[in-house]
C-alpha cells in the first residue's frame, strides 16, 4: 500500500513539474491544437457547391428581428399577438366548460350526495370544496393554456427564443448579469421552477445565483390566467368594447415587460452590492430557423405542457378547495376563521391598495398560483354575504361569465386601483412552493432561498403602496 502511495505521489509530482515546463499557456496551446485539428479535418472533408449562390433567407430575417431598431418592437408585437389570440380565443370555450362542469354537473353531484343522505359537512367538503375548486381551475385555465402553449411552442420551435436572448443580451450585461439569463427568463414565462433549473446553463456561480433569484419576475403560466382575467374586467372594462381586447392584451404585455424591468433592476442591484462582479462573456449561437412541424408541436405542447400544468393545478386545487371550505365554514363565536384572518389582514392590505381577501388568497395559494382567483372569488362571496349571485356562503362562486365576475368584485368594493394592484402583486410576490423548493435544491442555501422568497414580496408591497399613493393624489 505504501508503495502505491509513493508512485501516486511521484505521478502527481511529475505532473506538477511538467506543468511548470509547459507553462501557463498550456490551456491555450490545447485549445489552439483542437481548433487546428478541426480546421484540418474540415478542409479535407467539406466542400461547398457555390453554383448560383442561394438567397440566404435566415440571415435576412435575422437582420430584421435582431436589428437595433425593430428588434424590441417586433418582440413586443409578437408577445401582444400571442396574448390577444389567447384572450380572444379562450372566452367562449371557458364559458362552455364552466356551463358543463359547474352549472350542470355540480348541482347533479350535490343532489346525488343529498339523495344518499350524506352529512352536510361531507357534501360541503367534497362537492362545494374539492370538486368546485377543481372544476373552476379547469374551466378558467384549460382554454387559455390550450391556446397559449401551442402558439408559444411554435415560436420556440421556429427558433425565435435565441433571437430574444440576443436582443436582451446587452441589457443583461449592463445589469452585470449573464446574457444567458435572457434564456432562463424566457423559460420562466412557462414555469419558474423550470427556469430556475435552466439556470444551470450559466457557468459562473454569481451570475447563476442572480438568474435564480430574479426568475420569479417572469410571469409563469399559473399567473397568466389571473393577469388575463383581471385585465379583461378592469382594464378592458374601462375602455370602449371594440378596443377592450386589444387594450387588455396591451395591459398584460405591460405587466410582463414590467417583470423584465424588475428582473434587470434586481440583477443590477445585486451585482452592484452583495453579488459584486463583472458579466462574463459567452457565445450565443443563433440556430437556423426551422419550419415547425405543426401537428407534432400541437401534440407535444398539449400533452407535455397543457395537461401537465392542468394536472398540477387540479392536484393542488382539490386540497385547497377543502381548506377554503373549512376556513369559511368553521366558526369561532359565530365568525368564520376566514373572516378573522381577513379582518386582521385588512389594515395592511388597504395601505397597499388591496384587501384582506386577496392577501389571504395568496397565503392559501402558496402551493399553486393557479388557484388565486377561485380563492378570491369564494372568499369575496363569503364576506359580502352576496348570496344572490353565489350559491351560498362558503361555496366557491359559480362563474359563468367574465361579466358576473366583474360585477361581483365591483360590488364588493373593488376599483380600477384594486385591479391594477392585483395584477402588480400577482407579478411581484413570493414564488410558489414548488419553485421555492427547487431554488433550495439548486442553490443548497437556506439564505439564498429565503432572499429569493422575500425579495419579490417586499418589492410587491413597495410598488403597490407607491401606486396607491399615486392614485390618491388624483
Amino acid at each position, binding site marked *: 500500500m505504501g508503495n502505491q502511495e509513493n*508512485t*501516486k505521489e*511521484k*505521478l*502527481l509530482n*511529475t*505532473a506538477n513539474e*511538467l*506543468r511548470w*515546463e*509547459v507553462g501557463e499557456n*498550456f*490551456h491555450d*496551446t*490545447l*485549445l*489552439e*491544437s*483542437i*481548433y*487546428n*485539428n*478541426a480546421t484540418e*479535418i*474540415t478542409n*479535407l*472533408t*467539406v*466542400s*461547398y*457547391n*457555390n*453554383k448560383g*449562390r*442561394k438567397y440566404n433567407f435566415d440571415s435576412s430575417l435575422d437582420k430584421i428581428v435582431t436589428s437595433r431598431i425593430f428588434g424590441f418592437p417586433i418582440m413586443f408585437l409578437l408577445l401582444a399577438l400571442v396574448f390577444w389570440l389567447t384572450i380572444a380565443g379562450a372566452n367562449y370555450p371557458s364559458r362552455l366548460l364552466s356551463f358543463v362542469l359547474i352549472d350542470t354537473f355540480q348541482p347533479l353531484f350535490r343532489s346525488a350526495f343529498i339523495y344518499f343522505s350524506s352529512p352536510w359537512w361531507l357534501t360541503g367538503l367534497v362537492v362545494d370544496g374539492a370538486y368546485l375548486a377543481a372544476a373552476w381551475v379547469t374551466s378558467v385555465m384549460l382554454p387559455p393554456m390550450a391556446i397559449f402553449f401551442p402558439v408559444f411552442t411554435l415560436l*420556440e*420551435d*421556429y*427558433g425565435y*427564443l*435565441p433571437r430574444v*436572448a440576443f436582443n436582451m443580451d446587452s441589457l443583461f450585461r449592463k445589469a452585470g448579469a449573464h446574457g*444567458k439569463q435572457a*434564456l432562463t427568463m424566457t423559460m420562466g414565462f412557462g414555469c419558474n421552477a423550470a427556469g430556475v*433549473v435552466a439556470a*444551470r*446553463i*450559466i*457557468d459562473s456561480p454569481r451570475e*447563476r445565483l442572480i438568474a435564480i433569484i430574479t426568475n420569479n419576475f417572469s410571469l409563469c403560466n399559473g399567473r397568466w390566467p389571473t393577469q388575463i382575467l383581471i385585465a379583461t374586467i378592469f382594464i378592458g372594462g374601462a375602455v370602449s368594447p371594440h378596443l377592450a381586447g386589444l387594450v387588455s392584451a396591451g395591459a398584460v404585455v405591460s405587466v410582463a415587460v414590467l417583470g423584465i424591468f424588475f428582473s434587470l433592476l434586481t440583477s443590477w442591484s445585486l451585482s452592484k452590492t452583495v453579488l459584486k462582479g463583472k458579466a462574463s462573456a459567452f*457565445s*450565443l*449561437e443563433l*440556430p*437556423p430557423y*426551422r419550419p415547425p*412541424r405543426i401537428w407534432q408541436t400541437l401534440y*407535444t405542447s398539449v*400533452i*407535455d405542457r397543457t395537461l401537465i400544468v392542468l394536472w398540477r393545478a387540479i392536484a393542488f386545487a382539490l386540497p385547497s378547495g377543502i381548506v377554503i371550505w373549512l376556513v369559511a365554514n368553521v366558526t369561532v363565536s359565530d365568525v368564520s376563521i376566514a373572516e378573522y384572518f381577513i379582518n386582521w389582514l385588512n389594515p395592511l392590505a388597504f395601505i397597499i391598495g388591496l384587501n384582506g381577501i386577496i392577501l389571504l388568497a395568496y397565503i392559501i395559494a402558496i402551493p399553486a398560483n393557479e388557484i388565486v382567483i377561485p380563492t378570491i372569488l369564494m372568499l369575496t362571496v363569503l364576506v359580502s354575504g352576496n348570496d344572490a349571485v353565489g350559491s351560498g356562503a362558503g361555496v366557491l362562486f359559480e362563474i359563468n361569465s367574465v361579466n358576473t365576475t366583474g360585477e361581483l368584485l365591483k360590488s364588493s368594493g373593488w376599483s380600477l386601483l384594486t385591479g391594477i394592484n392585483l395584477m402588480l402583486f400577482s407579478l411581484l410576490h413570493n414564488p410558489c412552493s414548488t419553485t421555492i423548493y427547487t431554488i433550495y435544491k439548486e442553490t443548497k442555501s437556506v439564505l439564498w432561498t429565503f432572499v429569493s422568497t422575500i425579495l419579490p414580496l417586499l418589492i410587491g408591497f413597495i410598488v403597490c403602496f407607491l401606486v396607491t399613493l399615486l392614485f390618491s393624489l388624483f
Partner: protein
Amino acid sequence: MTDNKLNNCATCPAYNKGNLIKLGINMSDFDYVVALAGNPNTGKSTVFNNLTGLKQHTGNWPGKTVARAEGAFSFNEKKFKLVDLPGTYSLLSTSTDEEIARDFILFGQPDVTVVVIDATRIERNLNIVLQILEITDKAVLCLNLIDEAKRHNIIIDDRALSRELGIPVVPAAARQKEGMTELLNNIYLVASGEYICKPRRISSKSKNFNNSVNKIVSEIEKEFPGLPNSRWVALRLLEGDQKIIDAIKSGELINLVKVNSLTTVPSV
C-alpha cells in the same frame, strides 16, 4: 415469390429497423449503455425520442436539456440504455451542464458515445468531437441535419470524415427519421466490438506539449494499467484540474478500471 422477397429484406441490414423495439423508460437489465453528446441544439433529444419512443420536449434553442434524460431500446436482441446528455460546446470548462456531460462520459463509461453534430456547422462542432475522442475509444458520429446542409449547398465526404476521425460516421436527418437504422447498426457494431474505433488524438505543433503529454501518459499507465482514458487524465493533470488530482489521490481512478458500472456516476 413474395415470401422470398420478404425474407431477403429481413436479412438485409437496411431492414434492421424492424429489429428496433422502443422500450421507453423500461430500463431493466440492459446490455449496453449509450450516451448522446454534442453541441447544444444539434438534435440530440430528437434522436433520443426516435430511438426510445419517449417524448422528451425538444426545442430549437441551445440549452434545452440541462439534466440528463434516460430511456431504453432494444435492437438485435440486445437491450440498450440511452442517456441524453446536456449539449456542450466543450468539456474543458466548469458550468454544471458541462460537468454533467463530462462526468458521465468519463466516470459513467458508456459502451458507446454517440456524438450528434450539426452538418451545417462541422468545423465548430468538431471541437467537442475531438475532446470526446480523447476521453473514450468507442464513439459514433451522427452527422445530423444533413438535409439542411444539402439545402445550404454544403457537400460532406462522410467516408473521409470517418477515416480522419477513426469512428463510424452516419449522415442523418433525425427530424425526418432518416439515417436512424444506420445509426442503430453502427451503435450495435461499436458496442459489440465488431467495429474497432481508432479515434483521432489531438496533435499539437508544439513539441513541448506533445512530449509532456506522452511523459505523463506513460506514468499514468504504469500506475493505472488499463485505464481507458489516460490521455484525458494527462491533459487534465497538466491543466491542474483539482478534481482529477483528488481522484488520483483517493484512488477513484482505479475504480474506473476495475468496475465497469454506473455506480460512480454523481447523481444529478
